[in-house]
């Protein structure tokens, strides 16, 4: 018997760009990908949620600052608070930081240049719902494309995150000036993660790399386990 497909939502804000790619990539790793409109005050029945890349609400004021107040984001915060799996990619990462679900903030790249290229990423931990198909120390190659991806947190917060093992991915080479070369972090409970690179753009060798599929397939597998445990 085929195992049931977990339902993974992808929120579309005005200005989201990678929502369709995220839907496609999730389907490619055997999820039922469910579009969620930003005006929805309640999420449909979902096993995980992805906040995609783009420029939500024009990214006015600060990246993700306005999207934080959208009805769908409020619903996603409630979903996360009840233990739901939430992955923020690029702009989605910025939204989760602004919403206080993830630590730190994303600032303008130190170079002031938009970076758009494949980057090596070192996996810091493989015991999360987002990294179970990876191995700690493994290098993934996944593209970045952002102008505001310089993750920052004050030194005392960075120390706390290191102690709590909340840094999940680091750039294997200088990318945007992030503190500690941080590319992705998770919350204390490990059910919310954000990263600047785009796993949904790296799910097939034809795209240059299939390493992003490891992260997305980890998420889908964890979502499937949760879906089964609820039934």
């Amino acid at each position, binding site marked *: 018997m085929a195992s049931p497909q977990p339902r993974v939502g992808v929120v579309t804000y005005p200005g989201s760009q990678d929502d369709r790619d995220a839907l496609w990539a999730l389907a490619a790793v055997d999820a039922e990908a469910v579009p969620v409109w930003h005006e929805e005050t309640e999420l449909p029945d979902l096993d995980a949620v992805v906040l995609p890349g783009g420029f939500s609400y024009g990214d006015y*004021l600060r990246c993700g600052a306005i999207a934080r107040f959208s009805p769908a984001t409020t619903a996603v915060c409630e979903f996360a608070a009840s233990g739901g799996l939430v992955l923020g990619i690029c702009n989605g990462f910025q939204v989760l930081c602004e919403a206080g679900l993830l630590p730190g903030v994303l*600032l*303008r790249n130190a170079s002031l240049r938009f970076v758009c290229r494949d980057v090596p990423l070192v996996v810091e931990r493989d015991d999360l719902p987002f990294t179970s198909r990876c191995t700690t120390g493994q290098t993934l190659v996944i593209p970045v494309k952002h102008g505001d991806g310089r993750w920052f947190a004050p030194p005392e917060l960075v120390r706390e995150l290191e102690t709590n093992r909340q840094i999940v991915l680091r750039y294997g080479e200088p990318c945007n000036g992030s503190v500690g070369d941080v590319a992705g972090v998770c919350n204390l409970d490990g059910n919310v993660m954000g990263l600047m690179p785009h796993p949904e753009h790296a799910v097939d060798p034809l795209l240059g790399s299939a390493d992003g599929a490891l992260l997305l397939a980890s998420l889908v597998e964890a979502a499937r386990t949760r879906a089964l445990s609820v039934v």
Partner: protein
Amino acid sequence: MRATVVVRPKQGILDPQGQAVESALEHLGFSVSDARVGKVVDLTIDGVDADEARVQVERMCEQLLANPLMESYEVEVHG
């Protein structure tokens, strides 16, 4: 009631925009240092006195206009 909010990158935070502006000013022949780039938000609040306006603008700063991790702010209320 008119109010002005000035939002600045906190001391010690790398501000590449400020560095770029400083570099451009130096190209123009000005001798400058420590250029920092922030934001100004002007707004009008109806039906409140100056004290209440200040309270409300402070709340706006905490909730939206500034991110305390990286920015500081100053509020000025004009009569």
